[in-house]
Structure formats: structure tokens, C-alpha cells
């Protein structure tokens, strides 16, 4: 996937980007579920840190 720099002086905010991603499709919601799962694993000390969104994750068009 091509990395595109955000062309703006703004910090869009992770929350607002996440909201747009999950509104986009069910696949976006899957990203959110995986985030929650990762946080749960961290909370249960089964994982050392919160993982970022995998690069291969795509929201279907």
C-alpha cells in the first residue's frame, strides 16, 4: 500500500480518523474490534503493549 502524507496543518486526531474508518464499512469496525482485543490482552498482561492497526488491514470499497 502506498503511504500518503496527510496534506494539512491539522492533526486530524486518532479518534476522528477511527470513527470515519468504522463508518466506512464493516471492515473498519473489525479494525476497532481488534484494537479492543489488543487492549484487553494488555490489560490481562497477556501482551506487553497496544498494537497498531496492521498495515494489511483494508476497508472494503
Amino acid at each position, binding site marked *: *500500500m*502506498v*503511504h*500518503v502524507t*496527510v*496534506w*494539512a*496543518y*491539522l*492533526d*486530524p*486526531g*486518532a*479518534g*476522528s*480518523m*477511527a*470513527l*470515519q*474508518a*468504522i*463508518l*466506512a*464499512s464493516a471492515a*473498519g469496525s473489525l*479494525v*476497532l474490534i481488534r*484494537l*479492543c482485543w489488543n*487492549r484487553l490482552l494488555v490489560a490481562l498482561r497477556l501482551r506487553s503493549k*497496544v498494537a*497498531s*492497526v496492521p*498495515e494489511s*488491514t*483494508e*476497508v*472494503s*470499497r
Partner: protein
Amino acid sequence: MPQSLSYDSGSFRERSSRVFYVRGRVRRGLDATALTHWQRLETTTFYHRFTSQGRLVATHRLDEPAADWAAVLEHQRVPVVSYPYEWCFGMLRDAARLHLEVLEAALQEGMSMSDGSAFNLQWCGVQPLFIDVPSFIRQDRPRPWTGYRQFCQHFLYPLLLQAHRQVPFQPWLRGQLDGLSLNSIRPLFGWRDVVRPGVALHVLLQHALQRLCAALPRDSFQDVAYSHTAALKLVRRLRRTVDRLHWQPYRSTWSHYEQRLPYAEAARQAKEAFVWAVASERRRSLVWDVGCNTGRFARLVSSRADTVLALDADAQAIEILYQTLRQHGPDNILPLVYDVTDPTPALGWRNAERRTLIDRGRPELLLALALIHHVVISGNIPLSEFIDWLADSADETVVEFIDRTDAMVHHLLVGRSDIFADYHPRLFEHHLDRRFHLLRREVLPGGTRTLYHVRSRAVEAPL
């Protein structure tokens, strides 16, 4: 960045373009990147459509470059710059609608917008105008809207605050130049508010996601593919939300002033004749009607002025005036929420990013009708200070002095210890003479109100 030009003190956040002034003309330098976006914008149909409708600022590219900029644009000049915290609810909502309408049109032609700032909109009368041309950017592929959070902070949250909680947004926006943050608005809404337009998605869910994603790297969602349809859906969803937000002005002190306390018809007619005689002398570029209430006198002088600012501290009176002007005109009156005893200050970076109103548009003529008792008695401003403010604000003034025997002044003094020894017609005329030449004086029928047309001693008489 080129330094030799006279740059606008509020135009610096976006490094790739900047506004400057040349002999009163508004110009904008573009770097090479911004130029490619402008070249793309010029080829779109929506740009020409919105420009011809007077909803997008008229712009053309100049042949000669300036300093180190790759290109220079020249923009149509806005009559008077105003800020979102001077607008009423209806104005902020209509500005939000235009912003979203322009964004939707841009998305349909392969462009997007880099931000969602309310400062990107200005007014020609009561017609909103989108002015920030470099906001339009080419998109190689559909992406989430980077300006969404800023749009919420500048438009949606202030509108929600007023529509759902009846809290005036102006003081909040004035206190936070980048708008109402999600963290500041979230405690005002709970899960019982999910049925209210805009709350569930844009406040509660977004706040939950913000907390959930707080520990993530900032670019976590940057490479998540996004569809054109999803981008359009978000904008249409926002448009529907904004359309469903309403606020009905209730009876404030001033919004129904004329119906509640009508003064004698003969006095009203004499007052209108006096103001019309002043307005008719010559056409003026800018007139302020301070304490405009229903805008009766702003309307009266509007045919003899390029622009009239109708100013009142009461947001509800301004809301009613705005809606009336939208329906019936005229189109050269800009209504603004403005309190002379607590005026819009210079704000932002170095106190120069957002300027005072007098700095944005000094009037040739100022109307201060039925204002003095509110400033001197309710506002506790010494009479001499009030006269000094008039003289410093405009070359010419029409000011009304209202005697203590008038019912309105009496009403203000009831229940208060009378510390206003300076509120006296002789002292008023003494201070007036100190700063002004008297051009005309007339006692209105009823005998409690006197009108003065005066010219500041600091200026020469017009030819």
C-alpha cells in the same frame, strides 16, 4: 518564507500559502505544492459554479509573481471580516451548511479539503462566502477527511451546545480559538441524549474512540483504505445532522423590545427623519448601528451605505434580524453579536491573529441610538469615557441622549443606588463639545430624548 510583503497577521498556519495586501488588494502567495492544487481546482465545474453564485470567493491568478512565491492569486475583498464568535446560531449553521456543500461538491470531482475551519467563511451581508481557496486539495485516492475533527470543534459542537443545551456558543468560541474540544463538550451529554441529532456519533462514539485510540501512533489509520462512497456518506450525514439542529430565540430583554415598549409614533417618525437626513447627505462606505435591536435604523441607512454593521449584544435579537434579512433583505447589512462594554478583543498568536472589530472596519458613521443609558447605567461606563469611545470609533456620530425622566432610564435605575451623577444632559453636552463639532441637535416629541449629529474634532469636514 518570503518576508518583504505585508502579510495578514492571521494567515500563517498553512505554510504553503499566505495572504498579503498590496494597495488595499487581497492577494495570496502559493508555493509550488499549493499551485498544483489551485491548477486542479481551476479545472473543476463546482469551483466556477460556486464562484458565479457568490458563495466561493472570486479569485484570479496574477501574471507577476511576488517575492519567492510560485504564483500569486488575487481575491475579491470581503466588506468586513467577522469571526464565528460574533455570529448568531443561524449564521453559524448556514456557514456550516455551505462548508459541507462545497466539500461534497469537491469530493464529487476528485478533490477534498484540508481543514474544516469556521474562519474559512465570511459574509457578504447575510450571504456566507467560502474564502479559503487553498483548502481545496487534490486527492490521489479517497481518504478520511482530515478536517472532520476541526469541523466538529468549530461548527458542530457549538451548534449542539446551543440547540440541545440552550447555552450560547459565542463566549465559548471566543475563549477557545480552535473551537470546542471533544473533551470539553463530552461532559455535557450523556447516553440519554443519544436520540438528539449529532450526539451519539459525533460526541459519544467519537469520544470513546478517542480514548480507545489514545495510545496508538498518530498515523495508525493513515493507510487504511477508504472509499469515495464512505467519504461522501460522512459529509451527507453531517449535512443531515446540521439541518436537524434548531434553536428558537426566546423572549430576551431586547429581542421583542419594540413590540413590548413602543415609544410614541411621533417620536419614532422624528427620529427616523433625523437619521435619514444624516444618511442622505452622502453615500458612506461603512456605517455601524450599535445596539441595533430589530435593525430598523440599519435598514433605514442601508440604501445610502455600501455596508452596514448591525451590532447588538443580544444574540437573540441578532438571530431574529438575521432571519428577517435572509428573507427580505437588504443584502448589505451584516448583523453581528457585539457588546460595546465587552467588545471582541484581539486574540490568538501575539494578540494579532484575530483583530478587534474597529481594526477590521472603522465606520464613517456610527449610530448610537437608545444606547447611552445601557452603557453608562447598566454597563457602569463613565459618561466621559462613552463620549471618548464614540469619538475614537468614527468620524461622524448620531447619538441619542435619553433623560432620567424617560421611562426606560427610570426602569434601569429602579432598585439601584444612583451613583450616576455624570448622567446629566449638561455634562453630556460638555463632553460632547470637548470631542466633537455639533452639526445638528433636535429634541424629539415627548421631550425626554435628544438627538445629536456630531463630527469628531480630529477630522476635517468632508468636501
